[in-house]
């Protein structure tokens, strides 16, 4: 199975920029999520971030909050999400990264949780409310089990923090492009450009930019600034939830393709 870091490094070495779409598992339904993974795979996704619905998504804006609430109302559980990953035939070449808040991990026990997602074929993990200071134990367990835990860098992070996070982050470094929660923004701040330069001086690891990218133009912009991956979430979640299932799937397929073309 390809690790997240191998996948992104290959793209990085060819001077490319990977596309990582995000969708909330179970919205608008588990079957749709399974189909959506296939559609994303068919339209150029290099890795896929799958959001596990959570009751208190502190780092998420209205679009993903609403999607998580709908999924929970349908009774979506972690086991259901992992079942979808198990059945996804392309996970060997398109690694799956789970995006989940920390409490469900802690509740199950970190070692159990990591073992369970590993067995389902998950390659990476992003935990938006687990900063560097609280992540030591989990990073160690994940290294032993073979899951890559990606840490986040924010526009507010100091030089020392950026360095420390870059050193510990696995798979890639997730650069949060806005001071804020997830959601669609019309412009990319020039601050992202500076942060990419700053990060590049301290690490060779791939850098993925996310939170706020919602158009092919923005994806192209972050590629031009030196990002190794563009992560796009709310814009996919919103498209997938609109209209009928078929319309939603068609919309994310077209959108995925347009993003991929913009950064190819």
């Amino acid at each position, binding site marked *: 199975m390809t690790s997240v870091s191998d996948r992104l490094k290959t793209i990085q070495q060819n001077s490319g920029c990977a596309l990582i779409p995000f969708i909330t598992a179970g919205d608008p339904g588990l079957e749709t999520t399974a189909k959506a993974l296939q559609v994303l795979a068919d339209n150029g996704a290099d890795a896929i971030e799958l959001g596990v619905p959570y*009751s208190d998504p*502190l780092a998420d804006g209205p679009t993903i909050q609403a999607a998580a609430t709908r999924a929970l109302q349908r009774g979506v559980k972690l086991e259901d999400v992992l079942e979808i990953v198990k059945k996804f035939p392309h996970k060997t070449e398109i690694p799956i990264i789970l995006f989940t808040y920390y*409490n469900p991990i802690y509740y199950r026990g970190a070692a159990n949780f990591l073992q369970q997602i590993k067995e389902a074929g998950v390659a990476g993990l992003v935990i*938006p*409310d687990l900063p560097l200071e609280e992540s030591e134990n989990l990073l160690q367990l994940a290294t032993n089990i073979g899951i890559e835990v990606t840490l*986040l860098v924010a526009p507010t992070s100091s030089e020392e*923090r950026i360095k420390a996070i870059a050193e510990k982050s696995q798979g890639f470094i997730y650069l*949060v492009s806005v001071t*804020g*929660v997830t959601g669609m923004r019309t412009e990319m701040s020039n601050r992202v450009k500076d942060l990419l330069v700053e990060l590049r001086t301290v690490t060779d690891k791939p850098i993925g930019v996310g939170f706020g990218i919602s158009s092919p133009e923005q994806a192209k912009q972050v590629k031009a600034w030196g990002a190794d991956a563009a992560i796009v979430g709310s814009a996919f979640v919103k498209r997938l939830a609109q209209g009928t299932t078929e319309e939603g799937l068609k919309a994310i397929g077209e959108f995925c393709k347009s993003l991929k073309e913009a950064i190819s």
Partner: protein
Amino acid sequence: MTTTPINSSDRTNVPDSLGRFGPYGGKYVPETLMPALAELEAAYNKYRLAPEFQAELQGLLKDYVGRANPLYFAERLTEHYARPDGTGAQIYLKREDLNHTGAHKINNALAQALLAIRMGKQRIIAETGAGQHGVATATVCARFGLECIIYMGVQDMERQKLNVFRMRLLGATVQPVTAGTGTLKDATSEAIRDWVTNVENTHYILGSVAGPHPYPMMVRDFHAIIGQETRRQCQEKFAGLPDILLACVGGGSNAMGLFHDFVKEPSVRMIGVEAAGESVLSGKHAATLTEGKPGVLHGAMSYLLQDTEGQVVEAHSISAGLDYPGVGPEHSYLKDTGRAEYYSITDKEAVAALCKLSELEGIIPALETAHAFAYLEKLCPQLEGRPRIVINCSGRGDKDVQTIAKYLGIFDL
């Protein structure tokens, strides 16, 4: 009055430098907030013992808040619980309800506003459940000319209409939160999202001993004056320490404020009272410490009401201020170490206690506070001799009269 500067280090050894109370506490927040928490901690450490900061804070606590507030001997309540042989608990009330704005909340809101000004933050946000913390924050923002946005759940806005109006009168923007059940948990999440977005010019005045480090420590220290005054007043009144401290616990700020100065006095028994809502068995309650399991909510590890998937469950209480599925991490620590005891009281018991205190002492307590008074029914029969109990009368009940009237079936208020 003599003033006691805030100094926690001589009373307890928690939290450690990472904000841990044993396994509880910590900083479980998005990376964006980590620098702001470090900045806040640095500012707190710089100013908490600084003479000019203390002079301003103590001056305002005296002349603006009205401290020291009294320790009142509740004679008729004491008589009510007395045994035929004349023994029984001697009940004292620490009158936080007599503070400006009507609750203990202003101790912390005022001190944090002074910190925010020193950090150069002109925009203030806060969450509120019962509205008391929102009113306290709106009050200090008016006093210092700071922009003020209060996040409040829509259900709480309905049941605490009076406080919503007070906040608006004070010039604050009350931002309704519709997510979840529209209560304190949801308001807190939304306040944190605002802070993540506007962290560079905004200070978040968190209203309880909850949230990420340094809040549980800092809010406790800003409320520690409650216990410090109590110690001195007990000395004056009966030349000794109290035997039992009793306070309600939602997030747990008024209880920590009363307890903190006595944690290292082994003879002083400390009891926290949570909300059992309709009843613990019904599942509709907010008894986090008695029924929850350790987990992470709003930036801290602590006891938490959650389901078997690790999803946070909704709490229920007639009292908006206790209607919260989490609790401050230091309470979890005090529970596990056995230093404090925690029990729960139903809506019905709390309303009965509110009526009893109103009739016997002419004091209408807040519904939150009434939970502490209700526990006297269970506690007093167990006690021997004449133990001295200090109850934190943490807030007054004007804000709750509509809720109580509705509960008692009086609709034409």
